[in-house]
């Protein structure tokens, strides 16, 4: 009843008001009738009744104010009023909306990207208690384990971890009986049977395999594969497919958010119990029993109540046990723990470093937002001051201070809402821009920032909060003065109060400081990334194409047929017109798939003492095709397969490290352990970059592919003409040998290693965008401040000009102080970057924080833009017509 009544008041105010009026008129009528009955003449009775009642209008108004939901109507009126007054000043409204929209939208996009890369926890149960577990021996870190060792560690650590999962990754070919057998490979994760239960993932459809299913021919497919390959067919469960030729049953679909525990790696399309390795992983005999086959990544969930220190001491003990039991393989083994709360890729960068980059970018976001808010705030102050006259009229009509503050705050909220609306398209465009910057990878990558409503929501909330905080100052200023002051100031057009002038000036300085800081920091990042890109990788990037192939994924290929295929491929490619060199290898430098081995001098036994070296298998001609110069000795030749001592090629870094005094040629070494097979150095090649741009020179060595044949390989072809033409000819050549054999990733060498450049280019684009945003906001800020000063001092300027002041002195009058404050703030910001360490150092490459060229050019750019903004705003003052200004009041 009560609620209904109030709703009616809210929804049908006119009807309710009519009833009140009716009731009061009736009251007067009845009172008059009563008086007439007592003998008063009708006209007089009417008059007396009205007098006794005391004014219908007044009491109607009072009655309305007694309504409890009155504030809703008042807020609605405030919003209407705010919209009307914003419409009257389109320039102001547009500037503020764009500033807020761009800041919010761009911020949300950058935050979204960082969130999806580094901050968003894994979509599993309690991701915080997950740790990745790797071995380390001396310089060699992030070593995977063998399956027997995994079982040992899992058994030993049962008190510390609720469970340990093991997984290995690689491509497989998935096909359906009777369908195209040359389907491209997809990325597969082979896991221990407790994988899904231990991680705590809930299937989107069907079920997952469980403990005991280790060797069941079942598989779980990713949500993406289910969508792309099976059109989200709800009857997918129970479907029979072939993986590398063997029959499997699909039992479940993983949720869309789950794509394994790794970052920057490929998106898993299928999960398979590791016991099925014989059917899916070529040449994987003994994978589960051979302690030498270290192919497994371990992830464990720490038990509740176990501290990280306890976990560390526990894994230290198991490392010592392993070293004691298998001194040959695990001499000096250490076990490292890495939090796997978020997707990680320790090979690329430690989670701490990724988090650091994320934090720095977030601080950048926040700073840009602060500038935007300060900007809008100073515009609002300017606006409030200009509107003193209007406010004075409202005060004299009886508006209370509270009502005025409420009104002005409503206006800044409406402004924030407009900004938020503008932020939505900006957010989507910026996100799309970021996505196009990401490299296209052979298998779909987890690297995909999505426009996220969660991110946008928080951004908007933050800005509305900021709008309230920054709007409050101007609002209080506007409503704070008494009626007399307001009227007097309107007449005099004096300065807006000393306190507020100070506040405004502090805003100008702070804004300039932050803008310059963002600009200089952005400039440093761009410069350092430019350096990284210009860096000579140590091989020839252009005029070469690459692709990968893995014949034994097909059931038609065995070791012998694979060898046949490769020898024909090598010969045909070499004979192709326009091809200058070609070769094959296990990986290409910078393509993100390299590995490392431990090197021992012949006769040495301490594994820990030997250096770690990048390891690769190559065919004769590969180094030539890559464009890596041979400094001494020679490349591999076909005859090397017959040599009694296996030949090895080392790079100059390793050669100098092992034999600083003499030539490495003819020297002998062993890999991994003292009884590894003996190798003799036949060539020394120049070092190149292997893993990341900007890395320190790494030791590397190459063994002969032909002596250690594999199924999977990357083929590199260097030739004349366009990459596309070369690629087409190469593809035809492969088809001519076996039309059913799929190849993947065919493209230029640059594309093949785009992963290495992608991070750098994304960061550079981000830094540039931030710097540009900071500059834009600083420019609009100073423009707003000076435009305000001009409008506020119109009368004074008019008088001065009427008295013959020169334009230059007028410019100085309106823009001088603001410009001076801006320069001071900007210079402080630039110097702050140079002098105060802010975590930036570790991101810079070939550039120092104090880099003079960047500092000077960024500060100069800032100064020029600020001066241009100031002049364009001040120009209005010079063009004022003195007579019309003086007539204004």
């Amino acid at each position, binding site marked *: 009843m009560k609620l209904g009544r109030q709703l009616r008041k809210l929804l049908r105010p006119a009807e309710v008001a009519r009833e009140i009026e009716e009731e009061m008129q009736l*009251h007067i009528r009845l009172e008059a009738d*009563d008086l007439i009955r007592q003998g008063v003449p009708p006209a007089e009775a009417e008059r007396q009744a009205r007098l006794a009642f005391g004014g219908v209008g007044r009491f109607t108004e009072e009655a309305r104010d*007694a309504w409890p939901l009155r504030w809703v109507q008042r807020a609605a009126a405030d919003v209407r009023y705010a919209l009307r007054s914003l419409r009257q000043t389109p320039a102001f409204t547009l500037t503020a909306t764009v500033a807020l929209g761009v800041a919010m939208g761009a911020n949300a996009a950058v935050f979204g990207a960082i969130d999806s890369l580094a901050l968003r926890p894994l979509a599993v149960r309690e991701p915080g208690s997950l740790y990745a577990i790797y071995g380390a021996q001396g310089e060699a870190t992030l070593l995977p384990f063998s399956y027997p060792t995994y079982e040992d560690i899992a058994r030993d650590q049962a008190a510390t971890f609720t469970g340990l999962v093991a997984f290995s990754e690689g491509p497989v070919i998935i096909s359906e009986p009777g369908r195209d057998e040359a389907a491209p490979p997809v990325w597969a994760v082979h896991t221990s049977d407790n994988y899904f239960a231990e991680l705590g993932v809930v299937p989107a459809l069907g079920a997952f395999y469980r403990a005991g299913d280790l060797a069941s021919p079942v598989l779980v497919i990713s949500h993406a594969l289910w969508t792309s390959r099976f059109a989200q067919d709800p009857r997918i469960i129970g479907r029979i497919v072939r993986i590398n030729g063997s029959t499997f049953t699909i039992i479940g679909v993983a949720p869309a958010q789950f794509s394994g525990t790794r970052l920057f790696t490929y998106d898993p399309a299928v999960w398979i119990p590791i016991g099925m390795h014989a059917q899916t992983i070529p040449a994987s005999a003994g994978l589960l029993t051979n302690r030498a086959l270290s192919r497994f990544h371990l992830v464990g969930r720490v038990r509740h109540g176990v501290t990280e220190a306890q976990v560390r001491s526990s894994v230290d003990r198991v490392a010592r046990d392993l070293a004691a039991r298998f001194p040959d393989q695990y001499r000096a083994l250490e076990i490292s723990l890495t939090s796997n709360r978020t997707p990680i890729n320790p090979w690329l960068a430690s989670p701490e470093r990724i988090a650091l980059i994320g934090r720095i970018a977030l601080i950048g976001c926040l700073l840009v937002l602060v500038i935007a808010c300060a900007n809008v705030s100073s515009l609002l102050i300017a606006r409030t001051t200009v509107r003193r006259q209007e406010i004075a009229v409202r005060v004299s009509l009886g508006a209370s201070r509270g009502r005025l503050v409420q009104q002005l705050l409503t206006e800044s909220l409406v402004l924030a809402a407009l900004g938020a609306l503008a932020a939505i398209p900006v957010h989507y465009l910026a996100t799309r821009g970021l996505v196009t910057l990401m490299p296209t990878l052979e298998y779909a990558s987890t690297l995909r920032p999505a426009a996220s409503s969660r991110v946008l929501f928080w951004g908007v909330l933050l800005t509305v909060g900021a709008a309230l905080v920054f709007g409050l100052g101007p609002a209080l200023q506007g409503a704070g003065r008494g009626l007399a002051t307001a009227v007097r100031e309107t007449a005099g057009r004096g300065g807006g109060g000393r306190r507020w002038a100070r506040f405004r000036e502090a805003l100008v300085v702070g804004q300039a400081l932050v803008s310059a800081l963002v600009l200089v920091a952005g400039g440093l990042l761009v410069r350092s990334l430019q350096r990284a890109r210009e860096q000579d990788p140590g091989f020839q990037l252009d005029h070469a194409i690459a692709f990968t192939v893995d014949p034994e994924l097909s059931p038609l290929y065995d070791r012998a047929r694979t060898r046949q295929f490769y020898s024909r491929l090598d010969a045909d490619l070499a004979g192709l017109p326009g091809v200058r060199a070609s070769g094959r290898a296990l990986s290409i430098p910078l393509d993100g798939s390299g590995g490392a081995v431990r090197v021992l001098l012949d006769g040495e036994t301490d594994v820990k003492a030997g250096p770690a070296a990048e390891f690769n298998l190559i065919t004769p001609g590969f180094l030539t095709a890559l464009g890596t110069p041979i400094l001494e000795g020679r490349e591999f030749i076909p005859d090397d397969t017959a040599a009694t001592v296996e030949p090895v090629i080392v790079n100059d870094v390793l050669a100098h490290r092992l034999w600083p005094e003499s030539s490495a040629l003819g020297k002998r070494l062993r890999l991994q352990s003292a009884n590894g097979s003996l190798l003799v150095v036949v060539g020394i090649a120049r070092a190149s970059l292997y893993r990341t741009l900007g890395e320190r020179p790494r030791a590397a060595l190459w063994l002969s592919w032909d002596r250690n044949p594999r199924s999977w390989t990357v083929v590199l072809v260097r030739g004349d003409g366009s990459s596309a033409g070369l690629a087409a000819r190469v593809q035809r050549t492969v088809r001519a040998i076996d039309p059913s054999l799929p190849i993947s990733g065919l493209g230029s060498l640059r594309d093949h290693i785009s992963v290495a450049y992608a991070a750098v280019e994304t960061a550079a684009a981000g830094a540039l965008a931030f710097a540009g945003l900071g500059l834009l906001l600083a420019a609009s800020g100073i423009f707003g401040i000076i435009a305000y000063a001009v409008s506020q001092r119109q009368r004074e300027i008019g008088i001065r000009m009427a008295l013959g002041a020169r334009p230059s002195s007028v410019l100085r009058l309106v823009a001088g102080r603001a410009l001076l404050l801006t320069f001071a703030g900007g210079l402080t910001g630039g110097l702050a970057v140079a002098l105060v360490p802010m975590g930036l150092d570790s991101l810079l490459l070939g550039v120092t924080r104090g880099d003079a060229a960047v500092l000077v050019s960024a500060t100069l750019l800032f100064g020029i833009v600020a001066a241009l903004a100031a002049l364009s705003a001040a120009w209005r003052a010079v063009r004022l017509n003195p007579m019309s200004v003086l007539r204004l009041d």
Partner: protein
Amino acid sequence: MVEVLQGTLDLLILKALLFGPLHGWGISKRVRQLSNDAFHVYQGSLYPALYRLEDKDWVDSDWDESPEGRRVRVYRLTAKGKRAFAAERENWRVFAETLDLVLGAE
């Protein structure tokens, strides 16, 4: 004639309605009779007070037909209003006696 103290109008309205439902003018008339016209109050100020009481759920109202065939809004005391009146009256008595005690010794 005395000015009505802030808040006492509510009490007078509740008292007037204690004898049965009334329309606005009826309440006004009854208050004047009860007080022998001792209070000076604009009759119109009755209505904001009535709406406030209605929002507090102390009184309830319905549009009705008067004996003369006029459309009138009739107010009645709710159970909550009766309880509130008893409590308010007690408060008032304590207040009045206390004030009398303070001011009474001449």
